[in-house]
């Protein structure tokens, strides 16, 4: 009996619970955090875009460089024309 009464007393201990107001600074902090996150997101987006453009530019440069090298014969190739026979000695 005593136990049941005590349990009920504990369970009802939140009766009359008052609403607590958040601090005045909360709205200011929310706006600041939202603004900070917006700036960070924008910076990240620009950084990703710049990285993608850099990688594409690098690929294009390597591709065209390889292409140009294949078309132009090297100096060695011009100086030593291909031997007409297969005689080694």
């Amino acid at each position, binding site marked *: 009996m005593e*136990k049941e009464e005590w349990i009920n007393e504990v*369970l009802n201990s939140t009766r*009359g*619970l*008052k*609403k607590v107001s958040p601090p005045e600074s909360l709205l200011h*902090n929310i706006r600041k955090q939202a603004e900070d996150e917006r700036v960070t997101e924008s910076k990240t987006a620009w950084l990703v875009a710049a990285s993608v453009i850099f990688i594409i530019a690098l690929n294009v440069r390597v591709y065209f460089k390889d292409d140009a090298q294949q078309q132009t014969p090297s100096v060695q190739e011009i100086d030593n024309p291909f031997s007409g026979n297969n005689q080694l000695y």
Partner: protein
Amino acid sequence: MQQSYTFNQIYFEYRLMVFNLALHYVLNTEDAEEIAQDVFVKVYKNIHNFKEQSSIKTWIYRITVNASLDYIAYKNSKKRFFIFGKRESADKEYLSVKHTDHPGVLLENKETAAMLFSVINTLPETQRTAFLLSKLEGLGNAEIAEIMETSIAAVESLQVRAKKTLREKLGEKFEEYRRKK
């Protein structure tokens, strides 16, 4: 401009609701403030995506419940990390998590309420949420079901199990209380 005005309206209408629900979960004003800030930043960023499939109140309640549970999980994971780290840091983390002071509780009920909250905190997340929304926020089962995205029958079942568990655990606490007395 329109969004800013709408956000201010939302903030002043729901700030008490958000802050107090967070307070029921974490039991101290510093952590509740952090959660409330997180909730309203999410609201601020997503207000234009809100599709009104549920009421804005239900939507904000849902964000607050999730933010509170995430915050507790984050705190606990940090605590676990420090348990394997330096002893000194672990103690500090443990104290900060243990620090409970719900300013809304009446002075004469402080001791018993602290005991009740310590037992509520041992309940599984869904039971705890159903109990807090019903007992401390005074919401009906239909609204709780909408917030928790479940059926009314499931909410009733969660509440029954929560009350049963609370009674059992408080029964064990009673023995300690009588021994001290």
